[in-house]
């Protein structure tokens, strides 16, 4: 009898807690004036956490990716949503943008999707990375990294969507295998070093293999062709 009441009260607590936290979560992006500390805009519209952001100098100046698996493009002057992209099936946790062209890419657990930066037209889906993608980074060379929750890292050719390397991070000695996971990644400004922030409490610095060449690591054109044809036939 006592146990059951405890259970009921515990359930009640959980329920109230969840509703309570719901009232607290705002799921908005806020735009602040840097100097005056005032809030310029409150970009509301997402149903869940805004997990990723992009800012650009041209419209749409703000792109948000949310855990409600949508991407919204915002008009900064009006503070209103211009476009909502609902192609993703899983929460969007990462956004990345190259410096050399007006496109951006969004990462979710189902796939990575590339978009036109100006109006959010869909360009291409990069499939093949299984895992919750937490981090993405693009360098000026056209290398895209997607890092997932399980420590898997995929390196893609940003322009075509060809995955040229799939690797796993190695958890540092002393930590558990389960502590693989990439939370953030960034290329340095020259694009020659990649820094990943990981779940094993370390920061890892990656660089290109200077001994590799096109002969030692050729592009697997056969599989690439097969994959491209299969994707062309498939309606996404």
């Amino acid at each position: 009898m006592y146990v059951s009441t405890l259970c009921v009260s515990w359930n009640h607590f959980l329920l109230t807690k969840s509703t309570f936290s719901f009232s607290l979560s705002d799921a908005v992006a806020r735009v602040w004036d840097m100097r005056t500390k005032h809030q310029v805009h409150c970009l509301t519209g997402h149903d869940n956490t805004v997990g990723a952001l992009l800012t650009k100098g041209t419209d749409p100046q703000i792109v948000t990716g949310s855990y409600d698996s949508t991407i919204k493009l915002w008009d900064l002057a009006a503070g209103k949503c211009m476009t909502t992209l609902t192609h993703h099936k899983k929460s969007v946790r990462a956004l990345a943008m190259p410096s050399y062209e007006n496109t951006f890419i969004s990462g979710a657990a189902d796939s990575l999707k590339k978009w036109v930066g100006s109006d959010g037209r869909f360009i291409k889906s990069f499939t093949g990375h299984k895992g919750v993608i937490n981090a993405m980074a693009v360098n000026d060379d056209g290398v895209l990294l997607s890092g997932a929750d399980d420590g898997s890292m995929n390196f893609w050719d940003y322009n075509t969507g060809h995955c040229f390397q799939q690797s796993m991070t190695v958890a540092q000695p002393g930590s558990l295998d389960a502590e693989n996971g990439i939370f953030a990644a960034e290329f340095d400004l020259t694009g020659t070093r990649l820094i990943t922030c990981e779940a094993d409490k370390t920061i890892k610095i990656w660089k290109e293999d200077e001994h590799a060449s096109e002969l030692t690591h050729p592009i697997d054109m056969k599989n690439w062709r097969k994959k491209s044809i299969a994707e062309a036939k498939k309606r996404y």
Partner: protein
Amino acid sequence: MTTAAPTPSQQQQLAPLSAQTSLKRSRILFDTSSSSSINNTNTTNTTSQTTTTTPLAAATQAFVPPLFDSQLHQQTIKRKIRLQYPSEYSKLAFQAEENEVDAEGGEKQQRKETATARAVREIRKEALDRLRSGEDYVEAGGDGSHDVGAEGRLVIHREVDMKSSVMHNNHGDVGLGGALIVSGSNNTTAFSGPNSTTTTTEQQQQKGQPIRSGGILVKRDDDSNTTIPTPKWHAPWKLSTVLSSHLGWVRSIAFDPHNTMFATGGNDRVIKIFDLAKACVASQDALKITLTGHISPVRGLAFSERHPYLFSAGEDKLVKCWDLETNQVIRHYHGHLSGVFALKLHPTLDLLVTGGR
């Protein structure tokens, strides 16, 4: 346009057939609006075929589109073929091919060959003429395929999308070994020129060699033709250095605009700033400074490009602005009702964007 004039006997034999084929060709190579006028010119050609001009040559002359430098185009085609397919170019040496066709039309074989074979040979010759004069530049109307007899087929089309590519493949397998396939791709992608021409003879097609046109067009014998972009080669990445300094998960990273240092924020509620050059060689003094002040994991970091400021956002609803000259918090941005998961700065305006839970 130098077409070898056939012998008078050959001309008489071939004249009605070639007139027919050129009529058919006209329907394919031109859209319906212009086809009627061309038919008229063809009929005049047929009546005047006893004169010195070959009907073939007259027909091709009539088809020259305006504003088109055939010589220039011919040179471009030759150059493209030579550049892209050096091995094919030798096989496609135009003069040799023409001689071969003429040799085939010798008196011995003339008796044996059927009407279809003759038509195919004629078409082939015509197509070669076209290739040289650059008339495959003209867009194909209709379905883009042209039946010659029962077996041979001439396909002239532009590969614009998947549908027509598939169609090309369907028509591509010819029964009689006399068909010539001329396919011009006109997709305005970055990799190919506006009019790159691929020519394959039937031997190559039977071998099923994949033929790439400018890195875009991949020809496959077993599957449909698709435009497949050629990926750029990148060197594989390998692990160079491991920095273990944080006491919890590392959740965020930001680079200094001068590329000298980077900041990381972790679940241990601190922000650490590292020197990039020293960190790359795993030097002991890579860590420059540790900033404490957040009371929950730090989820967003950004360096300002125009100020010596570092912005940080945490799951504790706080958004802070650190002055890196004094290493102190100089501003707070209040307003989020829950944890802040993302933070970015506007590239040109003095604006800060944060995304909340």
